[in-house]
């Protein structure tokens, strides 16, 4: 554990948005432009200060980095304990980037209660960042719950038609999951005390526990409920379409890009390493639900008439894919799962921005209201196309890397699962292309669409980072994958006792890595190999 920065970098990242909140609170609510500038500047600053996480991150250090540790509530052993590994560093970067994009995309979309809007948006940012940084379980939970409130307001105040319903549904759904998760946290906490005699919420300590099987099951289920609702996994997903549909654009973007990652982050950070045996035991359940989610989400998406709802259901499908890779419990699968989380953030985030742009112009999300937009908004159509392709996993774009790794990861575990899951890709192409066709192609049949202006420069800039990332990850994902190496290895070392982390392996047999492991396959002729 170390802090390469030498100063509390994570705290700086964490509290930059709060500084913006304070500044906004001090600003007169009528000076809307000034408010917008402040919010944008804060979000931009937030992104800039998070950049060192990319450049200063040491891929050769398997421990936690940029660690900060202060006493918080000594009497129950809770600490202000922040630190990142490659996984959380990437998610933090994604969060700060999405923060910028979300704030920027709201410039003209939000015209009422501007001040409060940005206050909530920035507060949400802090909550999300904190959850990704916290290495103290209680602190994590605190941030986890803190996120709910701003999001609730974002949906509830600035949302569309059915916003109150969606907002409360979002809130309660997540809450039910997370309070049960809290019980799981407490159970780990007390178990740790009974073993070590120390009261602590230190996650790194929990990562070393060997909890007895029966208790593991319960803890896993408690965690599962909390995280699965957030992901959302198949039977717990119904809040998502509503929340997405009714949230304002930036809300949807952040919800899809970052908030959903909380669930998967939780699984990888907590469920897998803390209760590895239970995780292994529940693989069939989780994988089953994931596969159902993939197919089900895709099929339901296909039936949608509402553009945003369609994208929302595609989220269900994609997140099923993420879960599938994770519960392959193979390094490739988990790596793919993490990459796919980033990808989902990028592509689905962009898709929501895309919907938001026409929604802002036309105030309807009915797919049938559109058609032939390629003609009036060519730039828009192009970006949409790229993001559609990214979403359906076209090679050279980001989605492909994730899907391939996930499917390869699950394939070595079970051919059947991979067969079924891969068919989700076909369906994914079907609903996305159909959507694209219905909205972009054909002639402009609706006279209201004739005068739609193409993207403004500001709007283009909200997409540029996402496009760059999509291509970057698609063509050269190595920097990302390198950063994930130790994270994945640490998790793998927990879930599989005979796993040798790459860093250690490289150290042991320096330079002998070129030996193609394939030769092993040749020596032992393979028979089907289904496990």
């Amino acid at each position, binding site marked *: 554990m170390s802090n390469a920065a030498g100063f509390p970098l994570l705290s700086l990242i964490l509290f930059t948005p709060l500084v913006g909140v304070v500044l906004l609170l001090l600003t007169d609510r009528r000076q809307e432009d000034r408010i917008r500038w402040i919010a944008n500047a804060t979000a931009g600053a937030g992104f800039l200060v998070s950049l060192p996480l990319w450049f200063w991150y040491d891929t050769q250090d398997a421990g936690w980095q940029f660690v900060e540790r202060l006493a918080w509530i000594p009497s129950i052993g809770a600490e202000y304990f922040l630190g990142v590994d490659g996984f959380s560093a990437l998610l933090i970067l994604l969060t700060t980037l999405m923060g910028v994009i979300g704030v920027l995309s709201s410039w003209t979309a939000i015209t009422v209660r501007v001040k409060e809007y940005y206050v909530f948006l920035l507060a949400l940012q802090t909550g999300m960042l904190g959850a990704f940084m916290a290495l103290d379980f209680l602190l994590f939970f605190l941030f986890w719950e803190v996120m709910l409130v701003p999001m609730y307001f974002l949906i509830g105040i600035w949302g569309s038609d059915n916003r109150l*319903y969606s907002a*409360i*549904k979002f809130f*309660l*759904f997540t809450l039910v999951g997370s309070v049960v998760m809290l019980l799981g946290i407490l159970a780990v906490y007390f178990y740790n005390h009974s073993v070590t005699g120390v009261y602590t919420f230190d996650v790194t300590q929990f990562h070393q526990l060997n909890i007895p099987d029966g208790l593991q099951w319960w803890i896993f289920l408690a965690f599962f409920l909390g995280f699965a609702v957030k992901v959302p996994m198949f039977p717990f997903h*119904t*809040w998502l379409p509503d929340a997405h549909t009714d949230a304002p654009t930036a809300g949807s973007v952040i919800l899809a890009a970052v908030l959903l990652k909380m669930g998967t982050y939780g699984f990888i950070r907590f469920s897998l390493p803390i209760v590895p045996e239970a995780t292994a035991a529940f693989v069939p359940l989780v994988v089953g639900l994931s596969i159902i989610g993939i197919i089900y989400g895709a*099929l*339901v998406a*296909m*039936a*949608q008439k509402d553009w945003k709802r369609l994208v929302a259901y595609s989220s269900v499908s994609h997140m099923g894919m993420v879960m599938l890779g994770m519960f392959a419990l193979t*390094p*490739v699968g988990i790596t793919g799962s993490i990459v796919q989380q980033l990808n989902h953030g990028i592509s689905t985030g962009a898709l929501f921005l895309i919907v938001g742009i026409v929604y802002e112009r036309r105030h309807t999300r009915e797919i049938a209201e559109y058609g*032939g937009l*390629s003609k009036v908004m*060519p730039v828009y159509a*192009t970006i949409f196309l790229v993001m559609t392709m990214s979403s359906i996993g*076209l*090679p050279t774009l980001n989605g*492909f890397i994730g899907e*391939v*790794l996930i499917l*390869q990861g699950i*394939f*070595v575990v079970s051919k059947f699962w*991979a*067969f079924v899951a*891969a068919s989700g*890709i*076909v*369906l994914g*192409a*079907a609903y996305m*292309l*159909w959507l694209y*066709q219905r909205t*972009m192609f*054909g002639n402009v049949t609706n006279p209201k669409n004739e005068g739609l202006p193409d993207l403004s420069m500001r709007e283009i800039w909200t997409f540029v980072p996402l496009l760059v990332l999509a291509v970057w990850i698609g*063509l*050269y994902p*190595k920097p990302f*994958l*390198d950063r994930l190496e130790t994270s994945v290895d640490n998790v793998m070392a927990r879930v599989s006792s005979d*796993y040798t982390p*790459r860093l250690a392996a490289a150290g042991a047999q320096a330079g002998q*890595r070129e030996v*193609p*492991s*394939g*030769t*092993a*396959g*040749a*020596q*032992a*002729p*393979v028979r*089907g*190999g289904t496990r």
Partner: protein
Amino acid sequence: MDLIWLIPVLPGIGAALNGLVGVRYFDKRTAAYVACGTMAASLLLSLVAFAQLLGLPGDERFHQVTVAEWIPPIPLETAGGIGSFEVPWAFTLDPLSGMMILVVTGIGLLIHVYSVAYMDHEPRPAYARFFCYLNLFCFFMLLLVLGSTFLVMFVGWEGVGLCSYLLIGFWYHKQSASDAGKKAFIVNRIGDWGFILGIFLVFFTFGTLDFHAVAELAAEMPVEAAGMGVLSLICLLLFVGAIGKSAQIPLYVWLPDAMEGPTPVSALIHAATMVTAGVYMVGRNAVLFSHAPMVMEIVAIIGLATAIMAATIGLVQTDIKRVLAYSTVSQLGYMFLATGVGAFAAGAFHLMTHAFFKALLFLGSGSVIHAMNEEQDMRRMGGLKQYMPVTYATMGIGALAIAGVPLLSGFFSKDEILYRTFLHNRLFWMLAVVAAGMTAFYMFRLIFMTFYQEYRGPAWEGGHGDHGEHHEDDGGDHAWHGPHESPRLMTVPLIVLAVGAVLAGYVGVPAALGGSNAIEHFLEPSFVAHAGEGAHGEAAHLSHLAELGLMAISVLIAGLGIFLAYRNYIQRPETADEWAERYAGPHRVLTNKYYVDELYDATFVRGTMVGARGLWGFDGGVVDGAVNGTGWTTVASSRISHVLDKHVVDGLVNLVGWVCQEGSYGFRRVQTGLIQNYAFATLVGVFAFVTWFLVGR
């Protein structure tokens, strides 16, 4: 040769330029120059690389270049222990890919040039967009061809699918065009599903994705003659991918529809290059396939069946491009037949010759369509010979080539296939010969209906014919002055291709005709694991005389086909209709393409949509409803809860929700405001506890 990675990248740069800048700022000339320039540079590089390859000794013609890491190594369990999942951006130049890059860049360049004129009437942004897509396609196609691992090939594989989608739907305002694009993409995806699973299985089995390494490893495994082993499974899955991409039964349905795209696109993508990717891929994995004889058999059968089925459909089509499309499907079937019987080189040879004459035919048809003001129905053409002699001549050459008329390229490659098929299975051979006859028939039917007979097309200003028709097509925004020969930029590529269609066959003159079958020997190293190792299945041989006999038979059959076409469409044009009446049933089946589209629509498409709608209803009604019911949310929206009441029966959660809501009102109802009832409640509590302790303890 180390610069081969530039071969795909150059068109990629062209695409990027045209796409990012061109659509907004380039005028037509610049866009065209950028596109053609990059293609030309790419062709040049290919030629140099190919020359260098030729300069190497026969068994060293293998060169691999790794540009960068793509997916860095990640440990992963494989059948043989912990492997390392690792994919570099690596490119391989060997005889097979060398031949392919020449075909792709060569024909690609010609088609680019042709398009400069053909697409001239498009508005400026669309023009740049078109060239962007076309360049992008070449980029992906070259990636596919050069990629030295399965995944890199898959990148190109999917990429060409995307470009195909974009180009088919280029005129996106046409519903049919965008439908066709979507159909192509999705059907291809089904194939890709198999392909990617095959790739996973390859990795799982061999621990690597490198073609060369896989081939070497596979070569050491026993041939799975007896049953379906893992190699067979791999091959089967890979072949599913090939079926999708190369439009074989049952996934061929997208290709005829793909003719909605601009004609140069049909020529480049749906005739010369992309659709042959499946054949190429099977050839790439020749070692794998040759270890899975059962799958080979399947490949052969599917290829043959496709060849016949498509040929039969081609007999009655009236859309000029659709005839060519079915012809393409049929020819692709031939190629698979070749690979299926183990004649990988023959398949690749036919692939190359086919690229020439089919591109030629498509471009020629494009020229005709251009001349006819976007008319594609052959029944509205006729007698065009006099208006456009160059097109007529070049297309004629193409038709002769495809029909297998001796001394043209098609003859050599097709006969090689037929010969090898004969060696493998005589029944296959007979059927293949019949298909060849049908090919000859419908190709000449096309030529005759288009260029001979009377002019049946629409009238033009000041011209003859008075049955003017209203045209929906807005392509003719300028006045049409009747059929005319196409501009130089279009005819030159036609001529070049015609020359190619004549000469391309001479690289593979069979021994029976005194040749050395150079192409086969050149390609052979690509189909075996270790250079220098003899090819498989060379045991059976026929004498040169027998081989010549077979050639004669196939030439005769082709001649018969041409003759029938001549009789039906030149001598007695009415025969065609008579036949159609006499065999009304089969004719209807054929014109409706065996109703396969309808079948798919009714089963898969509709089934999926019904399923999807059903699930949505389920989602909204039950899963969602179940949750809504949980009281808290219900109250928020009483209307929804009202609807919900109907769903109460559905599930326990729902019931809980209802109980919860009613519970709230229930508890309130207990709160009567009457003090004595409150005291009563207290008493109830006491009574309950006392009884509990009395009874239970």
